[in-house]
C-alpha cells in the first residue's frame, strides 16, 4: 500500500489568551488525517473551524501541543510537532511550500528576488534562480517593468501573484495553500488551477483552502469537511 506523505494522528489545538482572563479557544480535537502524493485535498467548512490553523500546524507555524504531524521528508518521517527549529526550516526549504493569503513584504527586496529566494535557499545560483523567477512572474502575468521593484507598492492582486510565483517556483513534494486566489481575477485564477494540476500531476500532495467553489471543484480530488470545535471529533 502507498504510504501517505502527511499523516496526522490525534491532533488537538486550542489557543489560551493569557492576557484576556486566560480564555481558552478550542480549535479542533483529535483530528486524524492522511494525505497522499498526487492528490489535492480541499479543507472545507465555515470560518472558525480551524482550516487555516490546520495548514499552519502542518507548516510548523503553530505549535502542536498534542498529537503527531508526520511528514515524509528526505526518505524519512519527521514529526513536525517534535522537530527542532532548524529541522522545520530544512523541511520548509526542501519539502513543504506554503502560500499564505497575503505576501509578507520585506523592505527594499525586489519582486524578482522575492520569487527567486526559495530556489536560492536550495543552493541554486543567482542567475538561474532569477531566470526561473522571471518565468514564474510571467506565468502569473506580472509585467517585467515591476520585477525590479519591491512589492510593497503593488496592488493586493499583484502581491498575491508574486506570493504564488514564490510558492510554486520550487517543485515541493508538499504544497499548503491558504486561500491563494482570494484577490485574483478569473484569468489569474485559471493560472492557479493550471499550476495546481501540474503539481499534483508530478506527484505533489496539495492541501488547500479554496473559498471559491468553482476553484475548489476544478482542483480538489478530495474534500475534508471541518466541523466547528466541540460539535464533533
Amino acid at each position, binding site marked *: 500500500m502507498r504510504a501517505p506523505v502527511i499523516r496526522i494522528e490525534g491532533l488537538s489545538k486550542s*489557543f*489560551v*489568551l*493569557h*492576557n484576556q482572563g486566560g480564555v481558552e479557544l478550542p480549535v479542533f480535537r483529535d483530528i486524524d488525517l492522511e494525505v497522499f502524493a498526487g492528490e489535492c485535498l480541499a479543507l472545507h467548512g465555515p470560518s472558525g473551524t480551524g482550516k487555516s490553523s490546520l495548514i*499552519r500546524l502542518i507548516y*510548523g*507555524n*503553530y*505549535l502542536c501541543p498534542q498529537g503527531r504531524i508526520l511528514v515524509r521528508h528526505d526518505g524519512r518521517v519527521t514529526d513536525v510537532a517534535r522537530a527542532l*527549529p*532548524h529541522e*522545520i*526550516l530544512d523541511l520548509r526549504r526542501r519539502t513543504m511550500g506554503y502560500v499564505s493569503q497575503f505576501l509578507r513584504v*520585506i*523592505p*527594499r*527586496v525586489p519582486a524578482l528576488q522575492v520569487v527567486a529566494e526559495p530556489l*536560492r*535557499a536550495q543552493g541554486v545560483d543567482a542567475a538561474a534562480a532569477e531566470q526561473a523567477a522571471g518565468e514564474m512572474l510571467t506565468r502569473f502575468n506580472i509585467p517585467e517593468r515591476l520585477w525590479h521593484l519591491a512589492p510593497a507598492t503593488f496592488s493586493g492582486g499583484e502581491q498575491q501573484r508574486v506570493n504564488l510565483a514564490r510558492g510554486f517556483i520550487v517543485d515541493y513534494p508538499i504544497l499548503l495553500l491558504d486561500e491563494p486566489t482570494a484577490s485574483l481575477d478569473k484569468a489569474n485564477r485559471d493560472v492557479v488551477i493550471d499550476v495546481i494540476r501540474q503539481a499534483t500531476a508530478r506527484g505533489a500532495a496539495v492541501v488547500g483552502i479554496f473559498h471559491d467553489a468553482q476553484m475548489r471543484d476544478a482542483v480538489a480530488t478530495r474534500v475534508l469537511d471541518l466541523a466547528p470545535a466541540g460539535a464533533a471529533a
Partner: protein
Amino acid sequence: MMDGAAILDAPLLSARGITHSYGARIGCRDIDFDLWPGEVLGVVGESGSGKTTLLNCLSAQMMPSSGKLTYRLRTGDQADVYALTEAERRMLMRTDWGFVHQNPRDGLRMGVSAGANVGERLMAVGARHYGAIRDQVTDWLGRVEMDLERIDDLPSQFSGGMQQRVQIARNLVSGPRLVFMDEPTGGLDVSVQARLLDLLRGLTNDLGLSAVIVTHDLAVARLLSHRLMVMRRGEVVEQGLTDQVLDDPQHAYTQLLVSSVLQT
C-alpha cells in the same frame, strides 16, 4: 559533501545553565540553548530583561557567575570557552567570532580611517601583504554599500548608519563563523534601518553565518532570525522557531509583547 552533513548534526555553540548576577540582582538565569551552524538566534525582551547581559556572557566579554559554554572549533574539537586562557579566548574572538555593538563607537577605532578599521582586523589574524589587505578592505566596504571614495575618511565624519556598516565590514572581513549583535539597527532612522536589515539578511544568508542577535524590535527579529528566545526578568520564558513564537505565542509575556506591536 560529507563534511557538511556531519557538521550539521552538531551544534556550533552550546550554552548550559548560564547565570549571571550583579550582587543580589539577577542579570540572567539558567539559560540553556544550542545554536546550530547557519542558524540566526534572536533574543527579544524589553530593556532590563537580561538580553545584553546574556549576549556579553555568550561572547565571553563577561564571565558569568556560573554555567558552561561549549564552542565547536574549525578542527571539530570542542572548546570549553570559560576555561580557556585569556590568550586563547582572545584568539578565538579574533579568528572565529565577531561582535557588532549597538553604538558603532564601541566597535570602531574612531581615530583611524574606515579602511584601516577594516584592514586592522585582517592584520590581527596574520594578513601582511598590503595589496591583498587593501583589496579585501575595498571588497568588504563595497559589500556594505560604502562609498569607496571615503575609504580614507575617519568614522567620526560618517553618519550613524555608515558607521554601523563600517563596523559590520570590520567584523566580517576576517571570515568569522559566529557573530554576536547587540541591537544592530537601534538608534537609526527607519529608512537607514531597512537598508541595514536588508544588508544583514543578505550577508547571513549568503555566508551561512551563525549569529546571536539581541533586539527589542520584533519586526527585526522576524526578518533576521530563524529562532527566537523571549527573555523576561533574566529568564527565558519561551523559545522556538521565530514565526511560531510570534504567530502562536504560548507564554503570557510573549502574548503581551506580540499584541503590543502596532500593525502597519
